[in-house]
């Protein structure tokens, strides 16, 4: 957007034209208490120079660590070009740059994003993104309910191998719907995944609406997706895949699971070019089959032709959306994450299919190597005996929080303690090594863990 300077006379002329007394009058609606905020943390009268000094001192308390935590957010390499391009003024705007089809370039980018997500998940159509992975899954469940509206009561089968944060978000967003019942499916203790025998007890229940299939699941374990998808198909449940987009570089896309493929695929977009930033902002992606498109939530960009036959892009199927359907819209969480989607689109276009495959493979191999090295230490073992993608749950013969602290002192973020989420998994740590981790990083972690375990023995 161009910079347009104006003089004091211009300002007066504009104010006069719209009948406002002064600039402040334009902000009358905002209560005074909201116009500025108290800087309680800073001493009164501190100037900018002093504030910066204080902030720098606080920032030094942060330790840069080597990250071996995944659990929903992943430390992948982001090419420098991604955010350099995404931060250009044409893309980096405050709000809804595509409003009223003003920016064909932005619409084209969103269209390309949708195409990439549809191809990555093996389904027909994807939207222009949702708030994040967990809310995208909740939207998927609500959409599944709409697809089964013949039922008055809906049971939704949710595996306990799903990320606990996603489970909590589902509970929150589904709570107002008294006709939806969440049924939690236990995972197999040996393999950490859902098996047909975990589903068997529900076979003859009525009102089954949807099955959520995470891939990989919270433990990094690969679910038997073909088998689960076919089971759901056979029992007429809507199938919802919750997938990690990077793993789609290697794994079968949800659209090709089992005999019929899933109905809905969704997930967290962070691994596609979004830095880990204390939990956000991230973005959710969402795709479905053509037959279900009118029940899909979120913005959708279509490609068309103008009256001169030239290619143009436009928002489409808007009758699903809240500005037309009001309370009955397919979603009233209207957020999409335009800027992050811009970055992800650039990221995917720079990596290409081969690049994404190499990221996936590198992460898988590094995690295997890490787990092999760690489990050579006495008492350290893999919790689940099953194929894993780029995360693994290991059990440690010491209190996990102590080990985490000791690793942290050695500059290592050693993984996520799972016990607070799933108490039955005592002394376990969920570890991840992306393509960014080197052999030296892995060796450093192994030695630091060995040392930490020795120290714990002597305490």
């Amino acid at each position: 957007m161009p910079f347009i300077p104006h003089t004091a006379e211009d300002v007066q002329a504009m104010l006069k034209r719209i009948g406002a007394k002064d600039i402040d009058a334009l902000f009358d609606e905002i209560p005074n208490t909201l116009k500025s905020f108290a800087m309680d943390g800073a001493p009164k009268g501190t100037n900018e120079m002093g504030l910066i000094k204080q902030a720098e001192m606080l920032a030094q308390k942060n330790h840069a660590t080597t990250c071996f935590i995944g659990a929903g957010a992943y430390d992948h390499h982001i090419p420098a070009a991604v955010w350099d391009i995404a931060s250009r003024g044409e893309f980096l705007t405050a709000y809804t740059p595509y409003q009223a089809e003003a920016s064909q370039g932005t619409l084209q980018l969103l269209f390309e994003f949708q195409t990439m997500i549809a191809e990555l998940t093996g389904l027909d159509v994807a939207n222009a993104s949702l708030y994040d992975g967990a809310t995208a899954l909740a939207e998927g469940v609500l959409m599944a309910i709409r697809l089964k509206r013949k039922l008055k009561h809906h049971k939704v089968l949710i595996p306990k191998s799903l990320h606990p944060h996603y489970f909590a978000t589902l509970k929150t967003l589904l709570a107002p719907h008294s006709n939806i019942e969440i049924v939690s499916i236990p995972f197999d203790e040996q393999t950490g995944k859902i098996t047909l025998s975990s589903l068997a007890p529900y076979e003859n229940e009525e009102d089954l609406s949807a099955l959520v299939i995470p891939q990989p699941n919270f433990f990094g374990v690969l679910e038997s997706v073909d088998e689960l998808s076919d089971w759901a198909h056979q029992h007429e449940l809507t199938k919802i895949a919750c997938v990690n987009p990077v793993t789609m570089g290697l794994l079968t896309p949800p659209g090709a699971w089992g005999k019929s493929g899933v109905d809905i695929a969704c997930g967290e977009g962070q691994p596609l070019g979004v830095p880990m930033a204390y939990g956000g902002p991230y973005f959710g992606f969402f795709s479905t089959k053509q037959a279900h498109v009118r029940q899909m939530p979120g913005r959708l960009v279509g490609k068309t032709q103008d009256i001169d036959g030239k290619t143009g892009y436009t928002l489409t199927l808007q009758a699903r959306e809240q500005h037309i359907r009001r309370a009955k819209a397919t979603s009233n969480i209207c957020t999409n994450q335009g800027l992050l989607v811009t970055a992800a689109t650039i990221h995917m276009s720079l990596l290409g299919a081969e690049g994404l495959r190499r990221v996936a493979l590198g992460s898988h191999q590094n995690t295997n190597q890490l787990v092999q090295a760690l489990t050579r230490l006495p008492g350290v073992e893999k919790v689940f005996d099953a194929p894993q993608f780029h995360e693994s749950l290991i059990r440690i013969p010491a209190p996990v929080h102590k080990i985490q602290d000791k690793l942290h002192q050695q500059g290592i973020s050693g993984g996520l303690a799972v016990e607070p989420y799933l108490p039955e998994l005592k002394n376990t740590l969920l570890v991840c090594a992306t393509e960014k981790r080197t052999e030296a990083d892995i060796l450093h972690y192994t030695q630091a863990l060995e040392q930490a375990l020795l120290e714990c023995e002597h305490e």
Partner: protein
Amino acid sequence: MKFTETHEWINTDDKPAVIGITNHAQTLLGDLVFIELPEEGQTVKAGDELGVIESVKAAADFYAPITGTVIAVNHQVKDDPSLINRDAEGDGWLLKLQVEDPSEFTSLLDEMQYNALISEDK
């Protein structure tokens, strides 16, 4: 033929009863592009949502005028929604309902009452 305040018509002489949206409703909505119909076998109470009618400029729900079971839907309007624009109260019918209690008909509007209602719209 009887009418509702939400602009459905129901042919009370036919068995099962035939239901559609009124010509007045299709005029208000404009060119129709998509119809979502209920499933056959679905039971509905008077006032329940039956489906959605979407035009180029709006989307509206339509409702069950009376209680009953859906026993047929008009697949032709699903394939070609403009049929409703051309003949809303004939070939553009939406579904057939097995009526549970014919006495509910008395709560519906007759043609004169409905015409009076829509003349207020104009």
